[in-house]
């Protein structure tokens, strides 16, 4: 067990990518497609939140602070 771990450590030290999940056996095209899908998926998530209707609280903040400023002036 300990020997195996040591062996693994040596391999990793000699070859930075050895043993790293996700890099094994990838064809470059598959890899690129997957990376693109990840970026697009994140973008889709971001856009879906950004297209939600804005809760009223947000406008209330803008109005409240404006009101305070007018009162100060």
């Amino acid at each position: 067990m300990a020997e195996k771990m040591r062996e693994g450590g040596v391999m990793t030290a000699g070859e930075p990518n050895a043993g790293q999940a996700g890099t094994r056996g990838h064809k470059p095209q598959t890899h690129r497609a997957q990376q693109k899908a990840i970026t697009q998926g994140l973008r889709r998530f971001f856009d879906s939140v950004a297209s939600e209707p804005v809760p009223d609280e947000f406008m209330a903040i803008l109005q409240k602070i404006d009101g305070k400023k007018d009162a100060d002036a």
Partner: protein
Amino acid sequence: MNRPLPSHEHHEAPRPMTKDEERDFRNGLVEMVPVLRAFARSLCGKRDLADDLAQETLAKALQARDKFRPGTNLKAWLFVILRNEFYSNHRRAKTVANYAAAEGLHSESMEPEQHASLDLSDLMRAFNQLPFEQKEALILTAGEFSYDEAAAICGCAVGTIKSRVSRARKRLESLVEGKDGVLPSRSEQPEDPTDAFFKFGRSVTEKAHG
């Protein structure tokens, strides 16, 4: 330790906005609310916490409006405020450190409103496993900003952003592919966000001195 707002790095002293500038600024804020909410949701996961964060950002931005230089990138300026709020809240409230794990991780709040496919929810579950600095690097560069802009927002070198993005993508890829066990189950805790904060602080410091 909050990073100063970008305008602090310029030599011009802040001056009060003119009436027109003030109006543009306010309109700009209104326009930016949706992306602020999206950025906050990406970082926090939970809808209500994210909306609180976005609202605090808005309030801070209004208070600091004289520090904004009209004509510069309002979105980037707001994102800097948002992430400052996010990281300083994390330091203050360590009790929320595991909120993403507790219920937000796979709750409806993390799901997009009209979500397209199961794959997207797998992706977002995997995304939640990433350290915060990798999440923000990915989200910022997924469409809203260039690498240079993302680096300016995060106050780090462009190379740091690139390496975070690349590590994050690699990690996501392996998580999404290895559905049979590599992607942690809902009950498993992701990395403690507080740790991520301190790691983040260190990596910035290292870069600054390196």
